């Protein structure tokens, strides 16, 4: 390997050292990893985008109908030859489930985070840390199955209807996003500078006043970020929701009636459609909406983060 004839320009002093060599290789490898990730993201975006708009460009669906129509049957056509693609029921279902689980989950998550950080760090952390880690590790199909076997019958027997619906989906999703929101909220509360706490106590505030007026106020952007992350997860969750929401393509008018979300329609329909047909393209359009929504969530998190630093 080393025993080559030495040319003049390759005098040992001119030659790159081994360390420099590994340095270059390392830089090359890591850059390749970054490039790969960026290319993958771009490719996914490109694919979903081109497929997603073909419903409107190739099959002649109307964008207005897509966002306002209430009947969904992309295999059939209206009198004027447009595929029937009213996705409003799923949009409403997705937003309802996401919003409601955020509302249900936030107080619990923030409360738990406060307890761990301010009230009783020792016992809080010994109990909650393993619980949170455990909850994160449970696969979504298990959540869905528990929802189907426990939550749905419970709602059916004690509330009304068949038990399938937005309420069941909300309950399952709230438990699913609880660990995410709790740990992020905990980080946000932890990052409140100690001087602020001590200053407020020195001014004579009680611990409760300090928590309400100082800590929560200071950590607000961080808490908001935690909730949005949780919502992004809830919005994209497919399997667990599909198992308990009932998948009826109707505009939800009650929490206890079967409804559907963008994700549940996607997972249900993919195996039954033929690539390139209007039915399949319509599903891609739903995927595009999901992708854009997740983009909105990500951007809003970044925007809040930027504002926080000012």
């Amino acid at each position, binding site marked *: 390997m080393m025993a080559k004839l030495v040319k003049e320009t390759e005098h040992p002093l001119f030659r790159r050292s081994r360390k420099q060599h590994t340095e270059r290789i390392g830089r090359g490898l890591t850059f390749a990893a970054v490039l790969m990730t960026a290319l993958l993201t771009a490719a996914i975006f490109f694919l979903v985008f081109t497929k997603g708009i073909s419903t409107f460009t190739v099959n002649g669906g109307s964008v207005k109908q897509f966002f306002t129509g209430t009947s969904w049957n992309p295999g059939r056509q209206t009198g004027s030859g447009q595929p029937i693609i009213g996705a409003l029921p799923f949009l409403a279902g997705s937003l309802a489930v996401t919003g409601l689980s955020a509302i249900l989950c936030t107080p619990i998550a923030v409360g738990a985070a406060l307890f761990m950080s301010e009230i009783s760090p020792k016992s809080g952390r010994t109990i909650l840390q393993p619980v949170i880690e455990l909850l994160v590790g449970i696969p979504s199909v298990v959540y869905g199955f528990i929802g189907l076997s426990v939550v749905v019958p419970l709602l059916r027997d004690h509330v009304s209807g068949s038990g399938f619906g937005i309420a069941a989906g909300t309950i399952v999703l709230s438990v699913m996003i609880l660990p995410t929101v709790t740990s992020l909220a905990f980080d946000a509360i932890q990052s409140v500078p100690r001087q602020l706490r001590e200053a407020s106590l020195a001014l004579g505030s009680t611990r409760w006043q300090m928590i309400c007026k100082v800590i929560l106020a200071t950590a607000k952007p961080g808490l908001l970020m935690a909730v949005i992350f949780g919502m992004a997860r809830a919005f994209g969750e497919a399997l667990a929701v599909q198992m308990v929401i009932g998948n009826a393509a109707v505009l939800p008018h009650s929490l206890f009636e079967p409804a559907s979300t963008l994700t549940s329609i996607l997972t249900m*329909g993919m195996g039954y459609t033929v690539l390139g047909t209007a039915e399949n393209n319509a599903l891609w359009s739903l995927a595009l909406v999901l992708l854009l929504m997740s983009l909105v969530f990500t951007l809003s998190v970044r925007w809040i983060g930027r504002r926080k630093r000012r």
Partner: protein
Amino acid sequence: MKKRNRLSFAAAILLCAGLSAACSSSKAEQSEGGADAKEPAAEASGNITAVGSSALQPLVEAAAQQYSADHPGAVINVQGGGSGTGLSKISEGAVDIGNSDIFAEEKDGIDASKIVDHKVAVVGMGPVVHPDTGVEDVTSEELIDIFTGKLTNWKELGGADQEISVINRAQGSGTRATFEAFGLDGNEPMDAQEQDSSGTVRKIVSETPGAISYLAFSYFDDSVTALKVNGVSPTKEEVETNNWEIWAYQHMYTNGEADGLAKELIDYILSDDVQDTLLPEMGYLPVTGMEVERDAEGTIEKTK
């Protein structure tokens, strides 16, 4: 430190490469060994993939398993994915066999002239209800009224005072297409709950008071009540004479004429051996026992 890292990295890569090479070579040896072992040259060996209908999947899997046991050189991969997937993959020529529970002519976007149909079995389907509805026999009109939402309570049919809750299979499911065409006479059911697998449908119907849905005969059990329609029971005999009209062929499509291992497998499934023993065991009806024949338009012809 650094050197050791690099060494271990290289070792890991070598290990992976070695493992995959070993795997592939052992596979190759196996299939060669199998081909040499006892099969005459006329026997097809090799590797084929069958994709599509989840209703047909268990049968093809079981048959493929039996076939491979007798012919060690044959490797048959069976996958689900739905009839739509089966039909589109076979017309693209991406797989060797496309399984479907509807005629290719019935599916939009499929050029049925390019692919060849092999009907390998028949599946009967029927409406099922929760055991406590108190209704066991409905007329065709009542069935249509239930699924289109005109009837909303079982007491209107002389059953319990219980709201009817309709459960559909997903749009594009072969079972749903068959039930709509022959059970509901082509009427669109109302927008109601949808579930994407027969197993889930059975679970939900057995647990939800007042629920009604439809299942293939192979999914019937004691947890749900199978309805009679117009006094006819959903049984094998009634399907064979077409007194029970809600049934569908199970198709295995090939791109062009079947040849090689794909042909061997389809012939094997059509052999008396499989048709008379394996099929009834798994809840399918032998295609050989049918006294009528139906084409893609739904026209019935008596054959026996």
